[in-house]
């Protein structure tokens, strides 16, 4: 059988906000762009983003991008690269206006401008009064943005490969990326897509944890593909636990609820955030609020029969605000928690939510392999944007409203940089048969017959191990055990067999390929976490409780080959303004 092939100027893997915003730039520039997505584009997980996207439009209170930048640097616990953060906060403003021009149905203020709400970690004047910087379409902002971007791509006639799974990147001997091997899920047939440039926009991998706000599809496929192509992952120990998932289920309750005036209480009805963050209270940074909730529960002040969660009180906002600003949350609370927030508080507990780390890129979306001396080597033909990438703008902790911003700004920047680079590369580079065979082996491995461990079994075990050994509080002992367990599970992968060898829409095969990806990034997380001997942002260690700027103000860089860890300095120099030097982080 001959392998089917297609050729494009650019290949984009992933059709969330980053992939679609990049695709839109390319299609508008009349380039041949293929978007490969394992689900129909509007099913991508951007659709689930609720609260909004940050931009200093100053529609509600005085604001500017420099304040936004300060908040983001502080939120990152000073691990974010300040050049990239400056770029993002400046670009935020035209990016949001462009979205609006493209049709996003933002909520509106009385003067007709875009509605902006308060979110955690936002301030005016470098740490002063609360800012209102999050542009919102009710509490369905991600949905509104994703659908709009898909719609504009229809207009621009972007070429979509819906329900195609990206299996492996194809490399040449110089390490340049030449495209990817994909699998058409409906037919079960492989398709080789050759491209002058490839953009990974595959999103996060929250499915590494058992309780997560992330969708079934968030399995870190692009990150794992990069790892296997010799590209490292950066800052993987920083995994954000969102403070308010529906207790026991994990579905997200947006920070916008607290932005609109909702607050957390423990079993005594105490507004406990006042103790942990006297100024910002419930709108402190996410890592701070998550730890506070876990501490309340650990110290016996949790709610419910098992004292295992806290409550998010909303009813005092009144029926009108809830119906107008938080309709989606009300619906979710009724369905999944059985409570109407207009009447009763919502039971909440932190849920695995977001990967700050990912594939290292520069601020133009180009994938770079960082060296310890701070120099960076570009991987020819490879780009990454969105949650799968690490620019790094979120550092050790991401602020709410900055993830939609990240995917949009850097998706757009990557698209534009690809356009620039394509001007200098008119030809496709040749692809060797050996490289194709190597990628095909990823697929044929699952055709091995016989009895073995099932994908489900290993997947369940793995996700439990990650939850137990890489959660909110991390000690040396717990994590060292986690590393051994993940290594053992990775070994066990060899013994996993697929019972279902059929071709047509074989979701078991997809889940097998996803499991390999999950375990690859799980290893990156536990190893990076074990080695970082300090507490910073989302990475919180009872055995090293302080942030250590002398030894650890640096990015972790994990390579799959030999499970090797390396480090690179943080870029503390912004583009045009003064550096924000590390300070104690209080809210």
């Amino acid at each position, binding site marked *: 059988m001959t392998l089917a092939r297609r050729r494009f100027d650019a290949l984009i893997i992933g059709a969330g906000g980053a992939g679609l915003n990049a695709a839109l730039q390319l299609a508008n520039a009349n380039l041949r762009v293929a978007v490969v997505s394992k689900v129909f584009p509007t099913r991508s997980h951007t659709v689930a983003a609720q609260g909004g996207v940050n931009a200093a439009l100053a529609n509600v209170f005085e604001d500017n991008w420099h304040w936004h930048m300060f908040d983001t640097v502080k939120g990152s616990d000073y691990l974010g690269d300040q050049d990239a953060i400056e770029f993002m906060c400046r670009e935020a403003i035209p990016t949001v206006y462009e979205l609006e021009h493209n049709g996003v149905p933002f909520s*509106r203020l009385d003067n007709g401008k875009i509605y902006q709400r308060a979110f955690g970690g936002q301030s005016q004047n470098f740490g002063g009064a609360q800012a209102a910087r999050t542009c919102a379409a009710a509490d369905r902002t991600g949905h509104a943005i994703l659908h709009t971007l898909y719609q504009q791509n229809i207009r621009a006639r972007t070429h979509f490969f819906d329900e195609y799974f990206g299996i492996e990147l194809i490399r040449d001997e110089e390490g340049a990326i030449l495209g990817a091997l994909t699998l058409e899920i409906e037919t079960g047939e492989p398709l080789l897509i050759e491209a002058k440039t490839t953009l990974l926009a595959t999103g996060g991998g929250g499915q590494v944890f058992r309780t997560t706000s992330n969708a*079934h599809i968030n399995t870190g496929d692009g990150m794992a593909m990069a790892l296997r192509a010799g590209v490292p992952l950066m800052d993987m120990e920083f995994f954000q636990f969102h403070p308010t998932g529906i207790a026991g289920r994990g579905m997200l309750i947006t920070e916008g609820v607290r932005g609109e005036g909702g607050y957390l209480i423990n079993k005594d009805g105490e507004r406990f955030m006042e103790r942990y963050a006297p100024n910002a209270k419930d709108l402190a940074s996410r890592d701070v609020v998550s730890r506070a909730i876990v501490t309340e529960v650990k110290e016996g002040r949790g709610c419910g029969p098992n004292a295992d969660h806290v409550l998010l009180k909303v009813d005092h906002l009144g029926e009108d605000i809830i119906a107008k600003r938080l309709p989606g949350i009300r619906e979710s609370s009724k*369905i999944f928690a059985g409570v109407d927030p207009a009447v009763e508080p919502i039971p909440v507990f932190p849920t695995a939510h977001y990967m700050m780390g990912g594939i290292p890129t520069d601020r133009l979306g180009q994938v770079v392999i960082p060296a310890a001396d701070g120099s960076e080597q570009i991987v020819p033909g490879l780009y990454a944007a969105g949650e799968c990438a690490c620019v790094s703008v979120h550092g050790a902790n991401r602020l709410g409203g900055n993830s939609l911003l990240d995917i949009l700004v850097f998706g757009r920047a990557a698209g534009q940089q690809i356009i620039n680079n394509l001007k200098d590369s008119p030809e496709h580079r040749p692809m060797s048969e050996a490289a194709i065979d190597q990628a095909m082996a990823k697929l044929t491995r699952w055709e091995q017959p016989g009895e073995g461990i099932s994908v489900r079994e290993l997947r369940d075990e793995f996700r439990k191990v990650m939850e137990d050994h890489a959660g909110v509080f991390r000690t040396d002992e717990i994590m060292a055990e986690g590393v051994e367990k993940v290594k053992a599970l990775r070994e066990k992968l060899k013994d996993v067999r697929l019972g279902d060898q*059929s071709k047509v829409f074989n979701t078991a095969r997809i889940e097998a390929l996803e499991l390999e990806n999950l375990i690859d990034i799980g290893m990156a997380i536990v190893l990076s976490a074990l080695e970082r001997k300090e507490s910073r942002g989302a990475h919180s260690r009872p055995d090293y409780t302080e942030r250590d700027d002398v030894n650890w103000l640096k990015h972790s860089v994990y390579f799959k080959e030999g499970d090797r860890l390396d480090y690179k300095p943080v870029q503390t120099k912004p583009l045009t303004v003064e550096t924000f030097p590390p300070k104690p982080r209080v809210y």
Partner: protein
Amino acid sequence: MKFFVYRYNPDVDTAPHMQEYDVEVSRGMMLRDALMEIKRQDEAFAFRHSCGEGVCGSDAVNANGQNLLGCTTPVSELKEPVHVRPLPGRPVIRDLVVDMSQFYQQYRAVKPYLIHKDPLPEQEILQSPEDRDKLDGLYECIMCGCCSTACPSFWWNPDKFHGPQALLQAWRFLADSRDQATDERLDALEGPYKLFRCHTIMNCVESCPKSLNPTKAIGKIKELMLKHSI
């Protein structure tokens, strides 16, 4: 709890059949959880699902005769035994997975994107809260397909009738104060099929898991057409 699930794998089956499964029900279990449990028991069972919270629109199925989302339907609300079938009227690819391409084509056919012809302002295009309110009940569509695949007119003419989902989106742009293509949008909806095959049966309204009302939107389009023709 007993489930009868539609099974058809073109690689091995000559005809579809209903297969029985027993699922242990836990508190708060949704139909999607039950289907995932069935997949645990039987790896070869295929269905689409993703977000698990009713926003991605992947897991629309037909349970006990009703089109719904698996992830937002508590099993406790379903009469036992539960019969789970693929969405009606669409070609089955495998098990509960159907071919939605005609549905997507109809969506594309209504030009579901904002068309603004004036030069763009440096900031946002202004829109009053009242004008923005007109988009509520329209933009929230998750394209799950529950409505169009419950519509007898769409069953008959999926190639010519846009169906409730696409028409709801047609109205979403007609209703947007920022859109400047009203005439061409209305012209494109002329003819006996695209819009006018709607006979207000209202299955769409009944089946929408987001409580949207395509029939009302279709009525609004017709009203606007009438206004424009005189």
